[in-house]
């Protein structure tokens, strides 16, 4: 099997502020993100040869038009990518393969979601069946927390620590949805959403968009960021059961999709000791329990040690692996289709040393990770500096 390692480069990135953006619609968001990315890359819409756009809900967008219409990308290919919470990162993955194949020189990956226009609290998990239904997103992830409490003796305080850390990071980022530090007591005593997950264990409902301009390294070398462009070290995606709650072999102590995607990514990037080699990771902390499990599933620590990893500060910005220095989904926000692209914008800027929030010192290798559906899909992308 071949590899994407060092074959594609990021020319520029753009990201809107995330949050309850009542006055903006999806057109505003994608235009803001895409033009910021193009400005950053020093290209114009005419230079974009093909586009992939991540977007999950049909009520927030429709087909390739999600990006092609607001950006007027007519006469060229645009594809909507929908893969649960990995939609944005999968758009990036598809864009990378197109550039790596040589079919295109400059392409765009972007993502957008406009949740505020829909109303309702919490994302519905519709399994498409009239009676065999999923529950709310918090409920699906709470099933893991309950089982982990039982197996590992973790408590609500262990979850709260993740929230406190991510609020601390998010407070420093000008584009984050929630920008207020919180105390352990606030997080641990918050009202319940789906026991044992409370309000501060859940990411918010946010609007937002993000975009990346992708090319090959030989072109990046002659571009605006010729001295500090990032390259793709790995681009992995793995599926798992959409119906884990019906699967007797699913242990609810982690996500096989993440484990598989991480394994692929580390093999592709040649990483043998993730906790030592990776400087920062934007991981999918849709809920605090998810972040703890991601830390284990991504092999930053042993199974059952995730809560301890956070408790001992290894996930802090100055820790062993800075986990969610942006504030993560928890504080930065989670407009589904945009999230994966937003993470890769963040990782790129961290590697370039121009993070808008907390800067991880000497960041050279960073990861973006998504998980969705609730454990149906996981994508892991590793970005670094050129060889």
């Amino acid at each position, binding site marked *: 099997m071949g590899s994407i390692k060092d074959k594609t480069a990021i020319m520029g990135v753009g990201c809107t502020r995330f949050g309850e953006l009542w006055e903006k619609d999806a057109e505003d968001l994608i235009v803001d993100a895409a033009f910021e990315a193009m400005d950053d890359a020093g290209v114009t819409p005419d230079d974009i040869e093909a586009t992939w756009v991540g977007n999950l809900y049909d009520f927030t967008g429709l087909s390739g038009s999600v990006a092609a219409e607001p950006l007027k990308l007519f006469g060229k290919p645009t594809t909507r990518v929908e893969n649960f919470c990995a939609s944005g990162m999968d758009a990036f993955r598809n864009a990378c393969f197109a550039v790596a194949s040589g079919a295109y020189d400059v392409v765009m990956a972007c993502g957008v979601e406009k949740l505020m226009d829909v*109303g*309702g*609290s*919490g994302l*519905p998990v*519709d399994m498409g*069946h*009239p*009676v*065999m*239904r*999923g*529950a*709310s997103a*918090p*409920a699906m992830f*709470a*099933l*893991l*927390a*309950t*089982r982990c409490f*039982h197996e590992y003796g973790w408590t609500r305080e262990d979850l709260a620590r993740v929230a406190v850390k991510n609020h601390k990071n998010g407070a420093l980022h000008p584009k984050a949805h929630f920008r207020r530090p919180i105390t352990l007591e606030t997080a641990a005593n918050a009202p*319940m*959403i*789906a*026991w*044992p*997950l409370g309000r501060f264990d859940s990411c918010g409902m946010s609007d937002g968009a993000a975009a990346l301009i992708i090319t090959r390294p030989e072109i990046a070398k002659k571009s605006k960021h010729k001295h500090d462009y990032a390259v793709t070290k790995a681009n992995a995606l793995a599926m798992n*059961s959409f*119906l884990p*709650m*019906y*699967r*007797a*072999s*699913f242990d*609810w102590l982690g996500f096989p999709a993440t484990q598989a995607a991480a394994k692929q990514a580390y093999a592709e990037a040649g990483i043998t000791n993730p906790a030592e080699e990776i400087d920062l990771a934007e991981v999918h902390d849709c809920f605090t329990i998810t972040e703890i499990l991601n830390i284990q599933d991504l092999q930053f620590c042993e199974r059952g040690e995730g809560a301890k990893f956070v408790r001992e500060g290894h996930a802090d910005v100055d820790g062993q692996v800075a986990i969610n220095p942006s504030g993560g989904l928890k504080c930065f926000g989670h407009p589904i289709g945009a999230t994966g692209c937003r993470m890769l914008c963040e990782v790129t800027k961290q590697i370039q040393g121009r993070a808008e929030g907390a800067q991880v010192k000497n960041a050279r290798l960073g990861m973006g990770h998504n998980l969705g559906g609730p454990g149906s899909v996981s994508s892991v992308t590793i970005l670094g500096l050129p060889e």
Partner: protein
Amino acid sequence: MAKIASFGAYIPLFRLSRQEMANAWGVPAVPGERSVANADEDSLTMAVAAGSDCLAGIDLSTIDGVFFATTTAPYDEKQCAGVIAAALDLRTDINTADFTGSLRAATTALRAAADAVDSGSARSILVVAADCRLGEPESMWEQLLGDGAGAVLIAKQGPATLRGFNSTAGEQVGAWRRSEDRYVRSFEAKAETRYGYLQSAVQAGKTVLDKESVDPGDLAKAVITAGDPRSQGAVAGSLGVDGGKLQDSLFMSVGNPGVPLVLMMLAGALEQAKAGDKLLVINNGDGADAFLVELAEDFAPAAGRKALTGHLLQKRNLPSYTAYASFRKLMKREDIDPRGSAVTYWRDVNIVLRFHGGRCTNCGAVLYPIPRVCEECATKDQIEEIKLAKTGSVYTFTLDHLEAGKYVNVPVPRLVLDLEGGGRVFLSMTDGDPQEVEIGMSAEIVFRCLHEGSSFHNYYWKCRPVPEAIS
């Protein structure tokens, strides 16, 4: 002659004290308590529960029909007996029918079943009755009514023989509901009791005793349905039946459940009956039906059958009238509108109503819902369809405050259950206290109405903590 091969009953877990109801309105209270069906229960789901109780230990392949009796069918146009038969996982080449329109419908159905068995057109027919009638808020009816279901299995073979069927067609307005009425109506109760109930019931009962040459003194029990204990006593008195032989009318514990009352009382009588006992059954409603039940042998106890006593002993007190009002949707609330699909529902009938799963013949994994390709070993089309158990234990759970995007104060427990004998399912919990859920807790799987998406009743399964009998 047709026999009773088995019997069963169902009473919803919740009871509401009549004092609590009276307090809510500031009206006098009737003594005792009544049963209250949960918000996700209706006549059809209660019929499934009673039918399942009746069929405990019975070979389902021998059942040739289901007759469902009710005055509160969840559908005006669509048969309920067919849904009940599917949820009970019965054969499809059977006779199903709904009997409705009268409080006497249960014995009308029972007689039709006995005639079918006697004529040889069926080996056995499950007769199941249920009602969930509404009394007008603030009225005495609201306190007097109850919810429940009863069942009997009428067959060629069985411990008890049915004899001497007799019916009277006495036209009295009685209680009624026009098609547009939500609440039970009545005219002048005293006149109805005296000229309607008493005359019909006594005439029917007397004819049976005469025809079968049975001395009232030889009866072991008299199952006489009545809206109140005094009327029941009056019928017994007119027939010369000793008041001590009257089967409890459930007035104090359940209330008057309507159509199923006769089968619930019969189940109560049969639980106690011994070989040689003769029981007189008189059922009332737009005239009366009467017959004799004679036991040639004792009914063997069936594992898993709770019958009447088992259901009376498991209960939870409903804390307030508000809960009752909410369960019966007496207050207009915003509807949540989930999607329904009659096509998906029909195509998945074996998974949804019959609760079948699959077993991979290659790796042995028990799978639900039934996939084409095995989730464990990826073998294609080697899945045999199997019946899943209706009991399991909690593997993990959550208490979910979100229902279709709306925050609800009382969370809905969502349970991942490991089924006895294999398979794992994900069901919402009902009938229980969210705070008592824990990993390892035993749960039983019950048939309930999930939602009204696409304007039909989307029935499926939920689970509840296995109720403990009160001591």
